[in-house]
């Protein structure tokens, strides 16, 4: 009894000791064998699948790992005891016992008695306790009681061990899941997440290294997204993609586990599991070199594998989240940018609709492109295509003004003048294929993104230095199918890349700008045409009035001419008939002379009314003046009048030479008559630039004391004369001729000294050079009298 108590006490002591479960079980089995004085006490544990029982504990010595001693369920005494859940005792002499238990000979070649006791509690069979002895052996009731006690203790300890192991595993798994979950939910930044995945995986599995490979959805290539710790130079992560499809039929997800040499030939252990995302393989998760408790590297066990699968599942969903989040974020960001640009576009459009002035439009356009709250480019340049010369002509450019907190809203900013304006007047590029990228953009009529073009022939030398931007974008301004100009943008100052959204917005803006600019151009053309029409109308009104006067005068003149011819003719006949000294002769003389005077007046009136034809041609003004001077030279000499000439070399005038000569003839005659006591006639010619072109100016000055103020306003009126002789038509005729040539005649009166008449006549050629459009209109205007009369 005392001995039984002692045995019990020892058993309890072992069971409550702090050593490991394995040791405890060993000690228990050893104690039992010693007490019962049997050769061996062995514990066979039932495997998970309940298919076999394998030797786990021996009372003699620890079971060597290489020793594999097991009995299938129901086979051998051990298997039988497990199957029947009853104690069985046999000895070698019984038939079949030796054969059925032959494996035992490995550890006890001469066994005789075998007694098997199931180790179980109420609902679970853990294994079988087998007592082995070399001779016949009977167990007393007390001994049986000890064995019974021992199996209960063993069962209890095993249950404890199992529970603890289970708990440990649960805790480990939970903590891993917690760790992984914590890591994965800590961030939605994809890069950060990938980093955390490999780090956590390696730590949880206690691996020396880990790597995550993701298959690029576009290219299909596998790339290492992130790695941690020691990863072999040559990644042995296997191409799971090939095994993946059939993997689904396997009870366990596919994996690859093994050993491979690294670059230095050192063996590495690896374990890789696939990442399947929505049924598709999206990558692999690999770990390398398990670090054992001893610090040695070793292979991975099934538990690691299980954990890696769990991780893979978590990773896939986290990746999914992160990818979705990233996509949503990208979309949101893109939308925001789009909305901002569209709003800016709308503002710019509104601003452009507010004006038809080309200059103002250009400012708004450039401003909208460079302003921070507009499209926000660093620099914008505008060039237009001159269709007549096929040249790209720089117009102007703008730089982005520095952003400030007080920056006004876009609509207000657009209304302001350009803050940083660039002049591109010296920028001219022929539109030819060999003239660089800008000319090409015009020819090809589509936008182009250009990477730093060194020494582009389309960029003037003075601009080469300023054109060191990494890339710049060229958008043609298209009207119908014709490029009317170019917008060039870059981010030279900030060296930011050119983003697709603002470029897209710029293209939309360019489409609208092209139309608005074209409209403005048409408007200004119409405006100019209108003004010209107004001018022509005024001139026509003027000529209408003169024409009315002309037709009246001409009708009268013709009616008067016939009677005058008769009167004068007969007077001459009478003159021939009367005696030389008859008083009648004097009367006839008067009639004859008066008629002659009337006939002269008649000729002048008919000249004035434009009866005479005009012959327009290109003539040298100086030569016309010289020719006219010849006509009056004798009169001037006779009147003791000195002539001073200051004649400049002028381009030829398109004019009616006879009419122009008439003008100067009249002016010279007037000057002569203003200086009855002699004086100086000064003639001066020079070019004069006016708003609409270049004119030839000829001035005729006398030293006749000037024109009294009270008559000055009348001098150009027909039939007005301060003289007792003459028709009073001289200046009127001169003015009318000059007006017909689209020139002007002005009078500068210096009372007490003399008068200067200044005749200015347009030089069509020069107006031509200055402005092609103006030239055409002026030239045709000059042609009106010659072509339009008759």
């Amino acid at each position, binding site marked *: 009894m005392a001995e039984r108590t002692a045995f019990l006490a020892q058993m309890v002591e072992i069971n409550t000791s702090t050593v490991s479960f394995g040791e405890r079980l060993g000690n228990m089995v050893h104690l039992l064998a010693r007490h019962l004085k049997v050769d061996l006490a062995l514990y066979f544990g039932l495997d998970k699948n309940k298919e076999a029982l394998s030797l786990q504990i021996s009372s003699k010595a620890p079971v060597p790992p290489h020793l594999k001693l097991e009995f299938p369920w129901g086979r051998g005494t051990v298997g039988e005891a497990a199957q029947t859940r009853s104690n069985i005792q046999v000895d070698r002499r019984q038939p079949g016992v030796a054969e059925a238990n032959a494996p035992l000979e490995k550890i006890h070649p001469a066994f005789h008695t075998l007694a098997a006791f199931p180790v179980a509690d109420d609902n679970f069979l853990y294994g079988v306790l087998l007592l082995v002895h070399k001779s016949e052996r009977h167990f007393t009731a007390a001994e049986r009681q000890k064995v019974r006690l021992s199996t209960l203790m063993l069962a209890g300890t095993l249950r404890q061990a199992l529970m603890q192991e289970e708990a440990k595993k649960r805790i480990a798994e939970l903590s891993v899941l917690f760790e992984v979950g914590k890591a994965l939910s800590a961030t939605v930044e994809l890069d950060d997440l990938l980093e955390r995945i490999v780090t956590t995986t390696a730590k949880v599995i206690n691996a020396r290294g880990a790597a995550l490979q993701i298959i690029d959805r576009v290219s299909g290539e596998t790339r290492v997204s992130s790695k941690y710790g020691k990863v072999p130079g040559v990644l042995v992560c296997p191409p799971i993609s090939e095994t993946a499809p059939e993997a689904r039929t396997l009870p366990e997800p596919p994996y690859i586990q093994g050993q491979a040499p690294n670059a230095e030939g050192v063996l590495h252990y690896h374990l890789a599991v696939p990442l399947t995302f929505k049924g598709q393989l999206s990558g692999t998760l690999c770990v390398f070199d398990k670090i054992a408790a001893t610090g040695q590297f070793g292979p991975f066990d099934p538990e690691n594998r299980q954990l890696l699968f769990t991780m893979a599942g978590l990773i896939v969903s986290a990746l999914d989240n992160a990818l979705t989040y990233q996509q949503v974020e990208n979309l949101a960001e893109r939308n925001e940018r789009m909305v901002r640009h569209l709003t800016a576009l709308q503002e710019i459009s509104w601003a452009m609709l507010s004006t038809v002035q080309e200059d103002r439009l250009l400012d708004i356009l450039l401003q909208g492109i460079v302003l921070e709250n507009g499209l926000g480019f660093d620099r914008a340049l505008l060039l237009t295509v001159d269709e007549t010369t096929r040249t790209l002509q720089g117009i102007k450019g703008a730089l982005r003004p520095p952003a400030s907190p007080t920056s006004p809203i876009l609509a207000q900013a657009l209304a302001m003048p350009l803050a940083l304006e660039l002049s591109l007047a010296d920028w001219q590029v022929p539109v030819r294929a060999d003239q660089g990228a800008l000319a090409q953009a015009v020819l090809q009529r589509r936008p182009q993104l250009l990477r730093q073009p060194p020494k582009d022939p389309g960029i003037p030398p003075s601009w080469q230095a300023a054109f060191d931007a990494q890339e710049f974008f060229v958008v043609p301004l298209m009207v119908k199918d014709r490029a009317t100009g170019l917008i060039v943008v870059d981010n030279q100052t900030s060296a930011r890349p050119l983003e697709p959204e603002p470029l897209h917005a710029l293209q939309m803006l360019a489409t609208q700008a092209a139309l608005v600019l074209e409209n403005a151009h048409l408007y200004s053309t119409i405006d100019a045409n209108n003004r010209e029409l107004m001018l022509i109308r005024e001139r026509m009104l003027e000529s209408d009035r003169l024409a009315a006067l002309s037709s009246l005068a001409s009708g009268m003149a*013709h009616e008067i*001419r*016939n*009677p*005058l*011819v*008769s*009167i*004068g*003719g*007969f*007077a*001459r*006949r009478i003159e021939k008939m009367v005696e030389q000294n008859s008083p009648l002769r004097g009367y006839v003389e008067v009639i*004859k002379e008066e*008629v*002659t005077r009337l*006939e002269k007046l008649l*000729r002048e009136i*008919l000249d004035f009314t434009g*009866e*005479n*034809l005009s012959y327009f041609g290109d003539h040298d003004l100086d030569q016309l003046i010289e020719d006219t001077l010849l006509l009056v030279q004798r009169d001037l000499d006779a009147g003791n009048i000195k002539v001073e000439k200051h004649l400049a070399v002028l381009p030829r005038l398109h004019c009616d030479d006879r009419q122009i000569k008439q003008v100067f003839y009249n002016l010279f005659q007037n000057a002569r008559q203003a200086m009855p006591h002699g004086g100086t006639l000064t003639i001066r010619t020079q070019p004069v630039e006016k708003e609409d072109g270049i004119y030839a100016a000829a001035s005729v000055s006398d030293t006749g004391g000037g024109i009294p103020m009270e008559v000055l306003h009348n001098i150009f009126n027909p039939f007005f004369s301060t003289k007792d002789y003459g028709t009073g038509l001289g200046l009127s005729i001169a003015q009318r001729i000059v007006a017909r040539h689209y020139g002007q005649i002005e009078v500068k009166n210096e009372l007490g000294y003399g008068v200067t008449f200044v005749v200015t006549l347009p030089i069509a050629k020069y107006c031509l050079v200055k402005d092609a459009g103006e030239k055409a209109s002026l030239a045709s205007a000059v042609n009106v009298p010659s072509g339009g009369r008759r």
Partner: protein
Amino acid sequence: MKKILVADDEMAIRLLYSEELKEEGYEVYVAANGQEALEVVDKIPLDLVILDIKMPEMDGIEALRQIKEKRPDLPVLLSTAYGEYKQDFATWASDEYLVKSSDLDDLKAAVRRHLRE
């Protein structure tokens, strides 16, 4: 004696011209319009015709055309109060275009020239 026809609707002019030309030694016929002038041309072997342009019934231009049809060799001078048709006289195939003047020296010189005197 050279035969000259003066056609003018103004009696005073007809008188003046015929007096002056007779004095120069020509045989002068007169007509008051183009129609009359053509009749004279048909009847008389004229050496020269002086035509006014503006005349009733048939003007000088039409008379000139018909005279030149009948007798292309006959010199015809246009004498008129209008200066503005001068540029057209060549197309009308007249031999001279004279603007009327109280001084008849120009007219007489032209007559002499065309009669090759």
